[in-house]
């Protein structure tokens, strides 16, 4: 099971087989191998299941399949995202790229296959998902800010309720993160009084305030007016520069080329092609990639 690599199925030159460089200790194999039979065995297993393994890749997806009723939208995806990588996922609508991203933090639980976050098996029902999710930032197409709270409260609430930070500490972190995304005023207004670009930057600050180990972006600029796209991409570019591990579903080819360390092209629930963004965008190998890029570039 642990031998499955992301590149073998796609049949394309990736940026290298990351898995081969890793230590062979793989906690993912354990849960399925020794199903606990009594309470004591289960108890002793618990810490190992919830504790992140610093040597494991931040995101590892193994043979992931997802069906909505009869419709299979993910048909066996294998993918590994290493630390400090910025993986951009592109593809036509309905290709399953958003579903893939959303299954990384189990907003869409997979039908089969596994998702490992820093070695923690997200599909294990005994894993506390909330603990793991707190370390995965997520930014949505529709921002999903809490409309009944002020900007400041949007950024402090999870810090206080999940990380149990004091109000003062949470507000200090919030101000710092909001400044990082370029918002130093309007902290006491409600999100509806902000532009789309400002709202999305607040959403990014809200995620950053949790000190995440990685960030997921689900078409973060698709709902924005064209003139507001730039300010959000700018924040994401800075984030990538700071070394954040990122997985970005996007239609912004310029961003993918410039900031991405790897580009994945998906269609019809499978990875068609992946590799260095500049290479893939300039010289796509697969017919479907060529046809897609000819329409969007």
């Amino acid at each position, binding site marked *: 099971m642990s031998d499955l690599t992301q590149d073998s199925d796609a049949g394309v030159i990736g940026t290298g087989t990351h898995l081969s460089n890793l230590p062979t200790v793989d906690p993912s194999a354990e849960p399925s191998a020794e199903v606990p039979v009594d309470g004591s065995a289960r108890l002793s297993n618990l810490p190992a299941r919830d504790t992140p393994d610093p040597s494991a890749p931040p995101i590892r997806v193994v043979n992931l399949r997802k069906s909505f009723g009869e419709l299979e939208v993910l048909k066996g995806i294998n993918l590994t995202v290493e630390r400090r990588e910025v993986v951009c996922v592109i593809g036509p609508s309905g290709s399953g790229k958003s579903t893939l991203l959303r299954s990384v*933090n189990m*907003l869409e639980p997979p039908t089969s296959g596994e998702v490992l976050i820093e070695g923690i098996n997200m599909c294990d029902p005994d894993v506390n998902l*909330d*603990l*793991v*999710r*707190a*370390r*995965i*930032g*997520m930014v*949505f197409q*529709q921002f*999903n*800010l*809490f*409309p*009944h709270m002020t900007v400041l409260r949007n950024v402090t*609430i*999870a810090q206080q*309720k*999940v990380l149990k930070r004091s109000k003062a500490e949470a507000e200090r972190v919030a101000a710092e993160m909001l400044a990082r995304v370029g918002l130093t005023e309007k902290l006491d207004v*409600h999100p*509806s009084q902000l532009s789309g670009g400002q709202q999305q930057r607040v*959403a990014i600050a*809200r*995620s950053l305030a*949790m000190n995440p180990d990685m960030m*997921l972006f689900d078409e973060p600029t698709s709902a924005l007016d064209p003139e507001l796209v730039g300010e959000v991409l700018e924040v994401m570019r800075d984030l990538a520069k700071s070394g954040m591990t990122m997985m970005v579903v996007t239609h912004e080819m310029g961003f993918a080329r410039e900031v991405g360390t790897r580009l994945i092209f998906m269609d019809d629930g499978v990875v068609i092609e992946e590799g260095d963004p500049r290479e893939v965008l300039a010289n796509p190998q697969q017919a479907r990639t060529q046809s897609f890029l000819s329409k969007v570039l």
Partner: protein
Amino acid sequence: MASIDIRPTTRRRMSVGAWYVVAVGLIALIVFTADWDTMKSQFANGEIAKALWPDIVVIAMWNTIWYTLVSFVVGTVFATLLALMKMSSGPPKWFAIGFIELFRGLPALVTIMACMYVIPIAFNGTKIPGGSVGAGLVALIVVTSAYGSEIIRAGIEAVPKGQREAASSLGMPASTTNLWVVLPQAFRIVLPPLTNEFVTLLKDTSLLYVAGTTIATRELTSFSRSWLTYYGNATPLVLGALCYLIITIPLTYLVSRMEKKFAVKK
């Protein structure tokens, strides 16, 4: 033939004018045909009004208000729990469905009588504390929670799915998400139907008369009815009706202001 050619502004003015004519005519009809002397002595008798003061406010109106507030606040808390239970799965869901269907289906009067008389008989003399008022309030709470839960469930379902997803992605457990993200928005959405429920409940407190009230525990309707019988005069009923309006009209005004305030924030 020439009359067809009316300008739209003229036509509009004529139609508004027609409404005024009808309204003035109706008022004149009432003013000139009603027996004002009898009306005054039967419905607005000053002597009786003086005799009812201040009990109608400090006892009857006060009781109506606090019966309503207690049943509404406690009932809404239970309604929220029932709504969340109904949206879960397994035994909590079945319990919620059973409870809601039963108490929404029964007339409130039947529930009140059940709390009053059936429980002591069925459970060997066990009585709900607080006497007849206590039993009546328990019944109103039960009825309010059954009706309110469907209102609140609609509110919860109207909160966009992305809100829950955003909260989950921040690591918030379901209980935290409900308490801080979903329910505050759901209540804003269902403020108008919940106000409706409040007003219905305000009037349903009059059903407590079946519980047999003492002088100190009478609410507006039982108070007015007993003095109506005593004087053989409708003045107490008119005053009671005014008291209800004194509560409901400022309330609806207040709620519409709250709605506007929330609308700006959203």
